[in-house]
């Protein structure tokens, strides 16, 4: 069952990746001249497709792992405050003018922000505390980063800076280069690898923490893998692409019935499913709003929120009789 869901999600992700390479703002295909075609493919579309896949995989997998760890289907990658921290870091880079001085200040600022947030969460929740303490720490860090981000907007030196901040916060994959890929890919891949090793522990955790310990789960090791893995994957993803909402919440939800609700079996499908959703949304953006007037994060939220509503209604009618 699990492998069928994985294959389905993988097929969609491959389709999205191919479409992302093939389709530009002018529709399918590449410019006629060989040099121009090569440049468009390598310099523009390839980094965008790779980043879309990585960012989507990070959000989908982190969402699935957090839902399994917290045993709560409403958990999502933003819950820990890591993406809030990354956003604050990037916004600080814009606000301070560093981003204007050199282009990579933006993603680097995001990475610094994400690391600070992760450290704050570990300091607040500890490595052996309850899942509730982790959620509370995440809510606290999210609230602080949101407040400081708003402060940066409020105090922004000029209207252009505030527009830049707003736009960045909406999340996007446009105008990213291979440098962004090199910056984010190693961190995201390490984070993904850590999260993928938690499957068996998450499975045991379905029976509660004490039964899971009896079945061989070391709660501290698991907590470390979840926090560090999510921080690396989501922090790096947010640092290069901004805040892209709802992917981490909706993708595991959508795939859960296909894997018999198994929290461990959900990991690989959610990784591929997240990549598929972000890639396809990004392609849709190029087709329907080719000149960048609609941002990716806005689109995923626009698709995600009604979809989530539909899921809730489905669930309610299932439980009604």
């Amino acid at each position: 069952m699990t492998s069928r869901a994985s294959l389905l999600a993988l097929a969609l992700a491959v389709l999205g990746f191919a479409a992302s390479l093939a389709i530009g703002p002018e529709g399918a295909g590449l410019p006629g001249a060989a040099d121009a075609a090569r440049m468009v493919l390598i310099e523009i579309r390839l980094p965008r497709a790779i980043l879309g896949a990585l960012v989507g995989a990070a959000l989908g997998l982190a969402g699935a792992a957090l839902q399994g760890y917290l045993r709560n289907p409403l958990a999502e990658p933003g819950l820990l405050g890591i993406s809030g921290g990354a956003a604050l870091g990037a916004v600080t880079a814009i606000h301070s003018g560093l981003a204007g001085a050199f282009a990579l200040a933006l993603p680097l600022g995001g990475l610094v922000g994400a690391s600070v947030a992760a450290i704050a969460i570990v300091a607040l929740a500890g490595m052996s505390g309850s899942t509730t303490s982790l959620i509370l720490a995440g809510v606290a860090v999210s609230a602080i980063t949101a407040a400081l981000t708003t402060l940066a907007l409020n105090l922004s030196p000029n209207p252009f800076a505030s527009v830049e901040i707003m736009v960045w916060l909406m999340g996007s994959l446009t105008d990213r280069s291979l440098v962004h890929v090199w910056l984010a890919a190693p961190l995201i891949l390490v984070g993904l690898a850590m999260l993928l090793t938690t499957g068996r522990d998450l499975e045991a955790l379905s029976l509660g923490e004490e039964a899971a310990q009896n079945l061989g789960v070391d709660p501290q090791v698991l907590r470390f893998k979840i926090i560090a893995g999510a921080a690396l994957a989501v922090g790096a993803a947010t640092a290069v692409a901004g805040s892209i909402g709802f992917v981490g919440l909706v993708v595991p939800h959508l795939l859960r019935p296909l894997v018999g609700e198994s929290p461990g079996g959900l990991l690989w499908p959610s990784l591929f499913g997240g990549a598929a959703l972000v890639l396809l949304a990004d392609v849709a953006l190029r087709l329907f709003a080719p000149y960048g007037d609609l941002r990716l994060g806005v689109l995923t939220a626009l698709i995600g929120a009604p979809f989530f509503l539909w899921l809730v209604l489905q669930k309610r009618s299932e439980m009604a009789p």
Partner: protein
Amino acid sequence: MSLVCEHADVRLGERSVLTDLDFSIKPGELVAVVGANGAGKSTALRLMAGLLTPQSGRVLLDGQALSGYSRQALGQKLAYLPQDRTVHWGLAVERVVALGRLPHKSIASGIGEAGKRAVADAMARMDVAHLAQRSVARLSGGERARVLFARALAQEATYLIADEPTAGLDPAHALILFEELQRLSREGKAVVTALHDLSLAARYATRVALFKDGRCIADGQPTEVLSSEHLADAFGIDAIVSQVEGFPVFLPRAALRKLT
């Protein structure tokens, strides 16, 4: 072979939950732990399952400190069935029971033939085989209790620690469950279980341990431990202790003290 607590003290915050506990179980025994709410029964079971470390004293499994075992090795020797019967996702029954095989699996290996047999056997014994593909979210409370018990059986551990496994079960299923615990102990497993049904304890247990205020105040033959004097002391009840058609019966007549 034995699971032994020696002079174990457990404090949670300022409160002393277990004081100088000396207690042990051996293969072939079915030990019932009884006592009033808050007497320390669950804490004692969690201590023996390696889920708590005592502030002083020690817990030995087959002569070696529990802390010396890896979690996986411990899971192969000792199965713990918590009182909490929540299953967080709507997993299929067979999958839940198969979780009991996790301590026997390495990362690379699958469940294996022996594992499949153990799962099928545990489901048959707890009469849940016909539910194998059903989601646990759609089971009654009693069915879920049997599925979770089957998980612990599938673990095929020598020591079974079950915290109030019959709470909320109807009389027929409570009896079936204790028949199963008795069979396990007769097959050479060591079983320790906390419960509130004194009649079941007296009827099935080979030994009864009576807890009061974090201490084990009596430990021995069921009929000796479950005397009206002991019940008055540990539970604060005036109880009729009798036998009907050869079965022990306990009937609380009155509470001796007001609830504080």
